[in-house]
């Protein structure tokens, strides 16, 4: 089981390790600065910061070395034919950092919807131009916590790293079979209830809060959608709704079991304008049968007066499927060693949590 956890917050990065039967902070970095994404591989820890006044930045700490700022992902000069583009050609925020399955490769999803790739372990980045220059990209909508689209998830097929699938708030699901050279829309079967009636089933109008892929069976992709929970068994070509979700189908985060394609975890909340746990009771929901039924896991989580919301990247599972962590907008952090059956809260009051990531996951 993972013994190191990285927590990115509104006010810095916190590295936790197992200590005396529990977890404790062993290193803090970037105190006072918003951390928007974190990735911990055996060779390096990578983070993205959103410095506000000074823009988004990426930093890296090699396994044996010091923290160092790396070249920030950047958009090219806006071309003359892009005057009608409703979205800016400038980086707003790096929203996720995902291992590319090839030595040195990392993908970075961003607002306003750009996908970046590094092939030198985060030293330099290049924009995935085919996706950015695709005419349909200008139809993407910005509803993900801002006025511009957010590339919320990057999935890399473990058996074929050139097979990359992205989820966008708000533009549905897109896939590439050639490491980003060409893209096509997938993701039939969604229903976005807040869109105009004639667009509610359009794949490009879907608000993908988060996708999660089962590494052992990459055909299985779970989706926490704005309007509910869905599952795909065909690599994201089509999704089916899972109406049994409880205590609510609204939420932002999903984590897929690394080996069992029928198991996934969610962090439900009251939809939609309210966005806090149902009845102020913090729970994680889990399905172990492909979404036919859901268990409500609450042992160790606050059972009353809890108004913690879990953001997209603030629920994670380790490589065994037993280690789980969730972080909340109220600075709550809970860790489980038994697949969510029970949770413990390390003794700390953190800033609002944006992302959690176990080392190596």
């Amino acid at each position, binding site marked *: 089981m993972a013994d190191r956890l990285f927590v990115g917050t509104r006010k810095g990065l916190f590295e936790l390790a197992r200590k005396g039967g529990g977890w404790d902070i062993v290193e803090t970095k970037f105190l006072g600065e918003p951390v928007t994404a974190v990735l911990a591989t055996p060779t390096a820890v990578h983070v993205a910061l959103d410095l506000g*006044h*000074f*823009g988004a930045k990426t930093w890296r700490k090699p396994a044996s070395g010091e923290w160092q700022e790396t070249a920030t992902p950047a958009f090219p000069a806006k071309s003359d034919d892009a005057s009608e583009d409703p979205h800016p050609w*400038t980086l707003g925020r790096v929203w996720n950092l995902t291992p590319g399955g090839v030595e040195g490769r990392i993908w970075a999803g961003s607002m306003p919807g750009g996908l970046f790739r590094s092939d030198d372990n985060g030293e330099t980045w290049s924009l995935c131009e085919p996706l950015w220059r695709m005419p349909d990209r200008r139809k993407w909508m910005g509803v993900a916590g801002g006025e511009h689209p957010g590339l919320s998830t990057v999935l890399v097929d473990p058996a074929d790293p050139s097979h990359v699938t992205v989820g966008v708030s708000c533009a549905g699901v897109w896939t590439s079979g050639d490491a980003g050279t060409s893209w096509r829309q997938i993701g039939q079967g969604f229903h976005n209830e807040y869109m105009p009636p004639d667009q509610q089933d359009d794949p490009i109008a879907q608000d993908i809060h988060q996708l999660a892929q089962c590494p052992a069976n990459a055909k299985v992709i779970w989706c926490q959608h704005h309007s509910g929970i869905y599952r795909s068994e065909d690599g994201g070509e089509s999704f089916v709704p899972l109406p049994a979700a409880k205590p609510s189908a609204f939420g932002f985060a999903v984590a897929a079991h690394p080996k069992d394609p029928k198991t996934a975890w969610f962090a439900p909340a009251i939809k939609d304008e309210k966005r806090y746990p149902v009845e102020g009771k913090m729970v994680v929901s889990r399905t172990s049968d492909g979404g036919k039924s859901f268990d409500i896991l609450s042992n160790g989580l606050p059972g009353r007066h809890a108004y913690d919301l879990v953001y997209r990247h603030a629920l994670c599972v380790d490589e065994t499927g037993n280690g789980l962590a969730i972080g909340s907008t109220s600075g709550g952090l809970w860790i489980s060693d038994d697949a969510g059956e029970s949770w413990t809260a390390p003794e700390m009051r953190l800033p609002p949590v944006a992302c959690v990531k176990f080392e190596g996951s």
Partner: protein
Amino acid sequence: MPTVHFTSQLERFLPAPTVSVAGRTLREALTNVFADHPMLKGYIVDDQGTVRRHVAIFIDGIQLRDRVKLTDPVGEKSEIHVFQALSGG
């Protein structure tokens, strides 16, 4: 040569020393600063070269007019100050 001063807030992230550089416009002066301090560029201007929204630049006490192309003229003895407008919690 004009002199460029940066907010000390930048020192949290990287060296931002006061420097004297050649230049007849703000753009020329900053281009010369960034040639010696390439990582500094992304802190002051965005991907399109526009001054970041919450960065303020004053030339001899007067706020920059052209935040997009940075064509404001600077003189041999100009003092250029780059600030940030702190906000939020």
